[in-house]
């Protein structure tokens, strides 16, 4: 008896509640949605800040690690003082000339590769797209191999390998662009053309290596695996110029890329010049990738995985996704490099191996947890 009374009481209460929300009208519902949307944007900004802080922490820790012991607080104060005066003590020289260039290169390369990946996935509407999908890496690999194995290149001297890698990495992009004069620049055409270029350049590189000396082959192979060890302040300056020059136009196009995510026809009817935007973004993303990997070699995985991880957390809006995946990619690459050079020191592992070993399981976990729907 009592149970039933209690139940009735609650039923009435629930009825009252539902009717009151109905009469409160659409105003509250709108306010509610607005509030939710604001929170959603807040979460994205929070994630960007989180990634930024992560970079600072990892960078600080990374600068302390190595054969010469320096504490975290020392590192930060050395970096701070170094901004105003030239490094003098051994510790200052180690931090400023050895560790900091490597760390900064890790950050810049991480930002660039992750953003290039975000853009490639966006314009090609393909989850498997990465900075290397369109044959960019194999082009760079061939250029570098040509310089290392035959000493042949377009620019001589110190920049022989770098210049070659840069120029050859852009060839696939230009071939694809040439094709789009005869065929529409659809994602399918571009991906298939990119894969064709990838195979052509890989085969050419294999052929070169097949007829070369073992030592030279090893050097070429080491270049292709990728490393942040070749970082210098000169290189950093060039990479930052490339990065700034590429990220700004990509941010400017970010909403158009969002709209293209809803399909070419919808994007066209919403006023976006789809083919031109796709080609524009492809050129910029290729330049960005080329500008980085010519200094570091082909560091894989970051460009594929960082954008996906961020998309799972903050959604697909490129206006937020570009900065978020850039910063998160930087943190990821920096962490991978730090582990790569300390885990079995003094041997330094290739950073690309570590990015895959660290990112792979994390990536799998996120796919399992999130289930379907995010892509």
């Amino acid at each position, binding site marked *: 008896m009592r149970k039933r009374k209690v139940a009735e009481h609650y039923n009435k209460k629930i009825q009252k509640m539902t009717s009151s929300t109905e009469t409160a009208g659409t105003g509250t*519902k709108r306010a509610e949605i*607005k509030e939710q949307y604001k929170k959603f944007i807040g979460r994205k900004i929070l994630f960007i800040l989180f990634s930024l802080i992560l970079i600072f922490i990892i960078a600080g820790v990374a600068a302390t690690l190595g054969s010469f012991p320096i504490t975290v607080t020392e590192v930060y104060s050395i970096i701070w003082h170094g901004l105003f005066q030239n490094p003098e003590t051994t510790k200052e020289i180690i931090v400023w000339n050895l560790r900091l260039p490597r760390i900064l290169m890790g950050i810049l390369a991480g930002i660039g590769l992750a953003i290039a990946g975000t853009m490639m996935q966006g314009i090609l509407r393909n989850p498997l797209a990465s900075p290397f999908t369109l044959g960019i890496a194999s082009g760079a690999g061939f250029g570098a191999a040509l310089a290392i194995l035959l000493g042949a290149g377009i620019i001589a001297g110190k920049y022989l390998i770098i210049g070659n890698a840069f120029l050859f990495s852009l060839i696939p992009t230009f071939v694809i662009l040439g094709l789009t004069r005869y065929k529409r620049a659809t994602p399918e055409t571009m991906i298939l053309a990119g894969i064709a270029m990838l195979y052509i350049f890989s085969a050419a590189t294999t052929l070169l290596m097949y007829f070369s000396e073992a030592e030279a082959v090893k050097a070429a192979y080491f270049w292709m695996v990728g490393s942040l060890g070749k970082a210098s302040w000169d290189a950093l300056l060039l990479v930052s110029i490339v990065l700034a020059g590429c990220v700004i136009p990509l941010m400017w196009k970010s909403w158009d890329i*969002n709209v293209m995510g*809803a*399909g070419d026809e919808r994007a066209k009817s*919403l*006023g976006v010049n789809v083919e031109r935007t796709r080609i524009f973004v492809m050129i910029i993303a290729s330049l960005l990738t080329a500008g980085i990997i010519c200094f570091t070699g082909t560091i894989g995985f970051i460009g594929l995985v960082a954008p996906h991880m961020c998309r799972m957390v903050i959604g697909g809006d490129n206006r937020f996704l570009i900065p978020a995946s850039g910063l998160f990619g930087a943190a990821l690459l920096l962490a991978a490099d730090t582990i790569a050079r300390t885990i079995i020191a003094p041997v330094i592992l290739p950073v690309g191996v570590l990015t895959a070993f660290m990112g792979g399981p994390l990536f799998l976990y996120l796919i399992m947890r999130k289930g379907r*729907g995010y892509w």
Partner: protein
Amino acid sequence: MVRHYKVKMVKLKVKNVEFSYASVPILKDVCIELAVSEMLGVVGPNGAGKSTLLRCIDRILKPQKGSILLDELEIKKMSRMELAKKMGYIPQSATQVFSATVFDIVLMGRRPHIGWRSSDEDTEKVLENLQLLNIEDLSMRDINELSGGQQQKVFFACALTQEPDVLLLDEPTSNLDIRHQLEVMDIIKNIVRERGISAIMAIHDLNLASRYADRIIMMNSGKIFSAGDPVSVLTPDNIKSVYGVEAEVIDKRGRPHIVPIRPVGKM
């Protein structure tokens, strides 16, 4: 609401348009006039060229011959952005969409009108149309988690947020159940009347076309077979020669109601 029957202003004019895919002709000499605040239904069998016609009108495809005038201006000479301010198009195909919330998708409708940042006014417009289509509860959901019918409503809301003068709809009700079909058609009819929008709607369901369209164009193999009000177009003879179907046409409150009986002849 007073309708101005007499003053028939031409909003859109399609003149002698021809289109072919790699020398296979799809549209042959198509001429259409669309008045302000008019709802035009385009019917016809599969492959008649209905979708191609809509794509040509929104300049997604470029016709080889003929011209299309919007407010007496050649759409060929307009920029994509200019055209997008005046014309909205909802494709039929459910292309795989990138991960995005319903709110963000509907907000995309503002793209032709604003640059990088959206204002409060844009947010209000999004909310208004979400409410109009009764999909407010979905606003923060990801588009890929929704059913086909819900997605169709979301893209419809997006096109309404675009605030075009001319709305092109390719099978707007194909994924909807009968209740939602009626709801969406009523919304289309209302905005056509109240906001003075002109709409062209390609549609398979002859009875929906008959009930909601002011005028109907019946297409067959890329040509206009018959045009006029529903009563004069949706006749047993026309249906037989275009669809190859014997049908009974009943009068329902002044509009023809089609009951298909059996396929006849060879198609």
